């Protein structure tokens, strides 16, 4: 029996998302990630169901589990009612909890994601907060966003939003008492612990690489090795 498999089975998403896989490959055929990256969800489901400790450990440390876009297109199509996308989510969670995520280029990106997305949630109550969506970091947002960024308050006012305002409305300031509740939810449910795990692993890795955490974040956010791709 595999210890890692047992840990995975504690995740409700695996209990919901893994039945006997018949290796038909339908999930891979429909998967947008499989077309772009060297990625095969069928193989991932097969490895998990094999309960092979070494193979699961290798998977948890690999680039592979970070390629999925969690679109859940595979869920509709699997004839066995498997959910490869949910299995991936369970693998990623375990990879983070065990600190394995830091071993791969794509896994390390969790540092930037945690910092940005959870930072927004805890500070503002939103996953995405417009004042933190800078056009320098998002050139694809185009000149129209560069213009909007410069006139954010006026554009919100023009469109009837309530940017940082009191009461309801688009991008309102969420009251502190509510943000405190979200913080307590994070503390109680392992959200804060996960952020700590990721932060500590990133700081250690940055030191190993001789980088400051800021340099590490920049490197992680922009490095893309060619070996990930299918073409």
């Amino acid at each position, binding site marked *: 029996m595999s210890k890692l498999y047992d840990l995975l089975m504690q995740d409700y998403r695996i209990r*919901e998302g893994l039945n006997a896989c018949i290796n038909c490959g339908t999930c891979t055929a429909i998967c*947008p990630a499989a077309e*772009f990256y060297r990625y095969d969800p069928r193989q991932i489901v097969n490895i998990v169901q094999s309960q092979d400790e070494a193979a699961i450990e290798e998977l948890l440390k690999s680039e592979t589990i970070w390629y999925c*876009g*969690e*679109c*859940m*297109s595979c*869920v*509709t199509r699997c004839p066995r009612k498997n*959910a490869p*996308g949910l299995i991936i989510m369970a693998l990623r*969670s375990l990879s983070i909890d065990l600190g394995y995520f830091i071993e791969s280029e794509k896994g390390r*990106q*969790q540092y930037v*994601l*945690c910092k*940005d*997305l959870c930072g927004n*949630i805890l500070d503002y*109550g*939103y*996953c*995405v*907060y*417009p004042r933190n*969506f800078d056009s320098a*970091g998002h050139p694809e947002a*185009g*000149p*129209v*966003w*560069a*213009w*909007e960024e410069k*006139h954010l308050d*006026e*554009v919100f006012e*023009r469109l*009837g939003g309530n940017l940082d305002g009191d*009461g309801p*409305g*688009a*991008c309102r300031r*969420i*009251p502190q008492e509510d943000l405190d*509740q*979200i913080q307590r*939810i*994070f503390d*109680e*449910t*392992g*959200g804060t612990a*996960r*952020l700590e795990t990721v932060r500590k692993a990133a700081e250690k890795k940055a030191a190993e690489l001789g980088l400051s955490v800021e340099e590490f974040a920049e490197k*992680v*956010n*922009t490095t*893309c090795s060619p070996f990930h791709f299918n073409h």
Partner: protein
Amino acid sequence: MIYEGKQRIWSDYQKEIPDDHYFYVRSCIRQAFFTGSEVAFLDITRNRLGKDIFESEHHTTCGGIAYHSDTIPHETVMTIVARQFALMHKYGYENYVCSCITSFGVYAETLETWREFPELQAKIAEILMKTCRLEFAKPKYIVHASDLIFKFRYQIAARAVHKLVNVRTGKPLKVVEHIGCHYSKMFPSKGVGGAEYPYVLAGMVEAWGGEVVDYPERRHCCGFGFRQYFVQANRGYSLSNTHKKFESMEPYHPDCIVTNCPGCPYFLDRWQYVIAEQTGKTYGGDGRGIPVLTYEEMAGLVMGYDPWDLGLQTHQTPVESLLDKMGIVYDEKSKYLGKGGKDLGQPAHPSCLKI
């Protein structure tokens, strides 16, 4: 016989959408980037159709984007979801309408998990009480905001000032409809028409005079992919998926695209700009690209709202080609003005995509 069979299949995918009295929750991405769409949703449902749609300032993100970027544990997102539901209950509502498709998927997934594992539901209820002093409750009905506009599509058609018809040729406009993956791919029974015959947007297009374009990659993901966009190094994933869709729809010459997800309209709009800048290729025929709308923007245009009140000036791919086809008269000079005509300057012009 065949027709009856199809009717029967279709009836499996009908969902009950209550007529009135909803607790409304916003979408992080849509309120930030499609502010005018959420404003229009509330104006159409509350003021034009007289519905009771209640919003509390105390609701927050559902945590969905962070969850699907694997930055928060399963129990964290479930408790945030429980908190949103508890607020609904506290304010005396049992119908829940959300603006976000990622949220809609998270709610469907959470309710299904709680149904399957009642001990987990009990645990989350306990954590909710401990952390927020709120009473656990579940909605009687959950719908997406596009479900409501779909439900009211004929009432909107009855108030139409413009139709999805080319005023010069009299022919229906060709509309690509793009449905967010998390609307019905995971739990088909939760969406109008399920995953096989999703009809939520097609129903609006048909009711308002347009024609739906069927093309090979119609159901392909826009490529958001959460971490595949938020991390700069991964954005090629997002771009390639959108590119694949545009290449597939190009031969059908769509007049516009309508979407019901937060990310999709942003990506289908912005990646057109990037493709044009990188390769010189545009998909609109006249160097202007294919306009991409949210369903509220489409409903708003049909009902005669000013395009700049809807926020169409904040799109990178220009919408004027569509406005001209629909016979909508608009003031070019007021496009980028602030409230009360305040001069805010103008965005720079892209080098390839014409605006």
